[in-house]
């Protein structure tokens, strides 16, 4: 489709000085302006028998608000171009204008299914800036609640994955499993999803009776319940055959694509921040890092299932080793860290969550960079998808498990 020069020109809604061929906001697959880069020019040039089709921004399998422009030939995807920004809130800028405690409330809703990890990384970076020693009990509580959140997130992943492939049952089961954990965390933190629980120097509240009794009841049946849920998919031949050999990623490509978390471990790299760059009390805990060699969608799925079992193991050790003591370090209300820079990374359910914070000596961070694994993983979709069927795009995207809240920041 070539731009017809006689068509009416619209003033841009953002900048009245810019005139566009077509009003932006209509989700036309071809952008109404000339290509800006080499890659864009290449993508928006159609070959023989090819066509464009929009997937999103309200497509149910995009896990949020994502638009993907697919270039297809028949049923095969030739190439794709994800269009981001529908959920962009400018969290980094907002954090620069908030004081150190407030930033936690801003970073919380980034990846809303694993909110504790979004709090953990900035809190750790600020503690490094201020040389704060976190009490041991607080560290154990962080690990305990973090691993619970990881299980909840992986449970949802399992359901979504099946849903994107057309199976409706597993998501109902995984929501049951997740709701138990989420209610448990609600009794600990006061919130179901956006906990706002970690503080600089500790956590907001100590373990309480309701949380412990819920956790005890859940732990007694957790392993068997999770295994029963997993049998629903693992022994389903349609599911396994569909996933095996799809979207294969080898070791070198995974490093080149800057992948972390379960997605790189499914390609045979035992890169886990809890061991690769230990933090908190993880050096004292015993657990394995599950890896797979195949690097396909099935491997990415199975790695996450194995991780859930390791998380239960960690929770068990936390409950046994939990020391007594304070849950907060003694800190002033208004924090003015000395000028400096700090980088802190935690291993979340999707990969490395990291924060790079710069302090200039005032009570607000000078710069706060939030690194989100979903953002990095989503760009691999284009590479893994070309040559596959349209329906496989969703399977591959689901196996990488991006959350758009985190991608768009």
């Amino acid at each position, binding site marked *: 489709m070539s731009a017809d020069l006689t068509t009416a020109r619209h003033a841009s809604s953002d900048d009245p000085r810019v005139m566009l061929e077509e009003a932006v906001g209509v989700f036309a697959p071809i952008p109404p302006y000339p290509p800006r880069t080499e890659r864009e020019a290449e993508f928006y040039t159609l070959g023989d028998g090819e066509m464009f089709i929009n997937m999103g921004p309200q497509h149910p399998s995009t896990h949020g608000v994502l638009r993907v422009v697919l270039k297809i030939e028949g049923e095969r995807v030739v190439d794709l171009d994800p269009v981001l920004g529908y959920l962009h809130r400018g969290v980094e800028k907002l954090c620069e204008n908030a004081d150190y405690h407030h930033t936690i409330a801003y970073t919380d809703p980034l990846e809303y299914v694993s909110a504790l990890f979004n709090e953990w990384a900035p809190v750790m970076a600020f503690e490094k800036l201020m040389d704060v020693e976190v009490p041991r009990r607080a560290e154990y509580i962080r690990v305990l609640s973090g691993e619970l959140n990881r299980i909840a997130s992986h449970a949802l992943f399992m359901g979504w994955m099946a849903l994107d492939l057309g199976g409706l049952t597993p998501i109902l089961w995984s929501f049951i499993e997740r709701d138990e954990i989420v209610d448990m965390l609600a009794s600990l933190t006061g919130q179901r999803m956006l906990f706002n629980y970690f503080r600089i120097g500790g956590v907001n509240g100590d373990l309480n009776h309701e949380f412990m009794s819920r956790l005890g009841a859940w732990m007694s049946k957790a392993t068997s319940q999770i295994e029963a849920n997993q049998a629903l998919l693992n022994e389903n031949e349609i599911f396994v055959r569909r996933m095996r050999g799809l979207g294969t990623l080898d070791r070198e490509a995974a490093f080149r694509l800057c992948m972390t978390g379960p997605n790189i471990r499914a390609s045979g790299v035992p890169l886990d921040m809890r061991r690769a760059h230990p933090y908190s009390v993880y050096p004292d805990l015993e657990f394995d890092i599950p890896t797979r060699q195949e690097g396909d969608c099935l491997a990415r799925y199975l790695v996450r299932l194995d991780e859930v079992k390791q998380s239960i193991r960690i929770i068990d050790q936390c409950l046994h080793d939990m020391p007594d003591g304070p849950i907060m370090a003694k800190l002033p209300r208004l924090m003015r860290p000395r*000028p400096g820079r700090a980088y802190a990374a935690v291993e979340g359910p999707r990969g490395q969550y990291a924060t790079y914070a710069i302090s200039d000596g005032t009570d607000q961070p000078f710069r706060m960079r939030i690194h989100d694994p979903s953002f990095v993983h989503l760009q691999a979709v284009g590479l893994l998808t070309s040559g596959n069927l349209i329906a496989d795009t969703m399977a591959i995207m689901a196996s990488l498990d991006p959350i758009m809240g985190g991608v768009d920041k």
Partner: protein
Amino acid sequence: MDRALKRRLEARFGDRLLGPIRQRHDETEIRVAPGDVPEVMRALHDEPEFRFEALMDLCGVDTGSVMQTVYHLWSETTPDWLRVVADGLSRDDPRVPSVTFLWKGAEWQEREAYDMFGIAFEGNRDLRRIYMPPDYTSFPLRKDFFLPDDAARSPGGGVRHIEQAHAPSNATVDAQVRKAPTS
């Protein structure tokens, strides 16, 4: 702090480094000129004594007087994070070579830094805006971009996207701009 890494870096890069190597907690920081980025990165990535295989993060920083791009690298040869800072990019026309020839995954992170700071990564095939709309003209994370009081209201509610009358070519450093301490 990994003293051995510091010695290896000093021996290998020597006068390429701008200023001393800084170490604090579990981080080692080196500063290089923007033009040296590809060579330094290739050496860190390929040479057996470094083997920094993983690029963990790439971001831009506006210090108020200059621009920087900051790379965080991970290697199994050291317990430290290695932070490489490409320092001294001009605020009027920030340019730095791309590292997509080593890590294809840097492509979107460079697009983000371009979108937010206007840093041009030479060699990136796809340097266009990623979050902001295509007809957006300013760079929101720069220090001369001030947030209005209604910044938290959404564009969907009839509020326009915030724009600042500013383009990198006519940027002037305002006295009000918050500046990082010279360290």
